[in-house]
């Protein structure tokens, strides 16, 4: 049987226009912008403290509207990826 996905309260978001634009969009939907993801330009790490830290469903709420914002090219709620040490 397939293992259920575990959804976290972290999002990866692609926004053009620089960190200030990303900060504005994060604030608009209640997220905190934790900064650029590694060396990937225009990709930001957002965190939402009012979303359950781990859930088996992707819970909807006002924060979900970020996916429809025209300034957001792409957004993805992060799921836990089970990883094992070898």
């Amino acid at each position, binding site marked *: 049987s*397939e293992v259920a996905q*575990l959804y*976290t309260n*972290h999002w*990866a978001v692609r926004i053009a226009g620089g960190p200030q634009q990303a900060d504005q969009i994060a604030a608009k939907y209640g997220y905190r912008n*934790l900064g650029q*993801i*590694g*060396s*990937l330009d225009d*990709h930001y*790490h957002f965190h939402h403290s009012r979303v359950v830290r*781990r859930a088996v469903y992707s819970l909807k709420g006002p924060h979900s509207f970020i996916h429809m914002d025209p300034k957001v090219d792409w957004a*993805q709620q*992060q*799921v*836990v*990826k*089970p*990883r*094992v*040490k*070898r």
Partner: protein
Amino acid sequence: YAQSDPNIIHFNDPKWSNMWYIHCNDKSHQCRSEMNIMAAWQRGYTGKNVVVTILDDGIERNHPDLAQNYDHLASYDVNGNDHDPTPRYDSRSENVHGTRCAGEVAAAANNSHCIVGIAYNAHIGGIRMLDGDVTDIVEAKSLGIRPDYIHIYSASWGPKDDGKTVDGPGPLTKQAFEQGIKKGRRGLGSIFVWASGNGGRQGDHCSCDGYTSSIYTISISSTTENGNKPWYLEACSSIMATTYSSGEFNERKLVTTDVWQRCTDGHTGTSVSAPIVAGIIALALEANLLLTWRDVQHLLVKTSRPVHLKADDWKTNAAGYRVSHLYGFGLVDAEAMVLEATKWRTVPPQHICTQRPERRTRHIHVGQSLNSSITASGCSEEPEQHVDYLEHVVVKVLIVHPRRGDLEINLISPSGTRSQLLAKRLFDSSNEGFRNWEFMTVHFWGERAAGTWSLEIIDSPSRLRNPEVLGNLKEWTLTLYGTSQNPYQHFSVQHVPSRMLEIPTPEEILEEPELQKEEEEDEEYSGERFLKKKFGLYEGQCHSECGDQGCDGPDVAHCLNCVHFSLGSLKSGRTCVSHCPLGHYGDIASHRCRRCHKSCERCVGRSACVSCKRGLYLNTLNSSCINTCPPGYFADENQKQCLKCHDTCMTCLRFADRCTACREAYSLAGMTCVPECTNGTFFHLEDMTCSPCHSSCRTCTGPGKEECIQCAEGYLQQEWRCVQDCTPGYFSGEAAGLPHKMCHRCEENCLSCSGPGTTCTKCKAGYSLISRTCIVNASCNNADEVFCEMVKSNRLCERKFYRQFCCRTCLMNG
């Protein structure tokens, strides 16, 4: 078998004699053909200035074997979002993995502690990222940390090795890999080394792990001391090479560093193999820092050897490489790697050619095999995509199937080499099929790309299934990676041009004898043509470039003098031009095009070059063209000029900030010159300056009192910090290899003591001090005279293990 090495190096590290996979001086065992690590050391390569990091659960940066080579610039804590990758200590020792891997790469040598790393002078860092929820963001961040500083990323983890998981990098992590190989190491490409997997016992196949089967990772498997397949080994076609790792109970293990400043020879699995190869690549990079990420893969393919590794699937591909699904191209050879690296010339650019079959949807009938083929041209019609000589080959499939584990997939190259992309997986009952899953093989390396490729899919049910539900191959594509030229012979065309092309090499340009001076001589413009003019043989219109003396014909070559410049000689014929061509400059006084110095492409006087011929660089200090820039300058390939290195560099390569030696007061860290911080200071990451250590530290990695490497005068090291006096429960003593004293822990149950062993002066509650030993406050009801005599005659109370063994009762009873 290898000969025992009479010139063996000896180190004083206590586990050195157990490191059989590095040296061969143990007379009680036969010596195996080994990885030739010591031979690489004897050639002077120990990993100096190469930066390796371990993506894992953290590393114990204060470990005596790691502290010397620990590099905080190569470290980060993604889980805690700070710069300290120290693992989280818990009673179950869950986070020992990264420290164990790190020691294998860069444990310090000859420090009387534990082991010797493969690259024992390399910089070692740790990226703590497995001790928390791992997400696509966490992985992408980890793979993208300081890509211009860190050379090698080593990872020994992945999706579950349970034989039923098919998982790989998410979209961000895929981008991070791509960014790494394109931009990392200032364009040479980050090197990602990956452990192939531990799921052998579950019948797992590493093609179902998208990390180890990525073309961007170097996938490493393991073999036992005797060259057997270890029980944990996962086979697949993307494995590139192999190292020794732990085997069966009667075979020797590997030793490495462990948390709590310890060493271990515990079971390692495949995890230790990736850092061993990371260490060997570090030696190769020390030999040649300009190797690209693909050069490193070519080096491994060329130098790894099957030696005594046992597998029933060794085959020789059409390019002559021996390869297996268990071990890739075989056991790594460190000496061969460094030797090849020193003379290596970068392989031609990677081309990518994707081809599709004509027919798409096909049913996969139970118990039968489905064959689908592609006649590939290698994209010869597109020069930018043309692949003639193969490197990686990737097959992307969209397969719908009721039981994924029943599928076996093979790919057969035009040369007839068969590579198994997927073996049956008994535990995989998923009905998800493969949704655009990419299978990768290195088994066709060096073969030619053009011809017919066949994909073979076999469905053999391992348990009862509804025979009416068929699998379906909906789509597949073949992506060929490689080069349009022979990667090892392209220099004869590119850099040593044939005489037919008449393009001399830079050396030839600088060394060839003076060119003919025919047009340099100021001959009078007289002779046959003048006579023709004199006798008036031509009376038509002259060319507009002809001067006031007219011409003897209509063309520009018939002029008797020129308006602007004359070009050529009497022998070869002269012509008038408005501008002098490349390699010449216009001498206004004589209206002649004169030849520049042979090394110049353009000049304003014979030796005043403004641009240089191919392969030479303009030295702006004296306007000359040279093939090697002077110290402090580097050859800029775009401007074809010698440009100044960064202020802190003494010498640099290709870029101003890619330093190879530093000016005074700076030291080389990777390819960056950082200030040489004096004792009592450390290099501050954010400020890029030397900042003071805590007053208790002599040397340190950060400002905190727990970040000392060595203690200041008057201080002793106690656990993670430096203290003026040992706290109760510790006694002061010497420490091997350290300039200061250490506080050692007293014997168990002592509250205070005066030295090592049985020297307790105070005991914990519930214990009594008897003969300077703390003995539990309990008496034995069966400690009669005979029993106590036995305890006494065997001197049990002197042994730590038996100290609580009715000793108090017997001692009280005299």
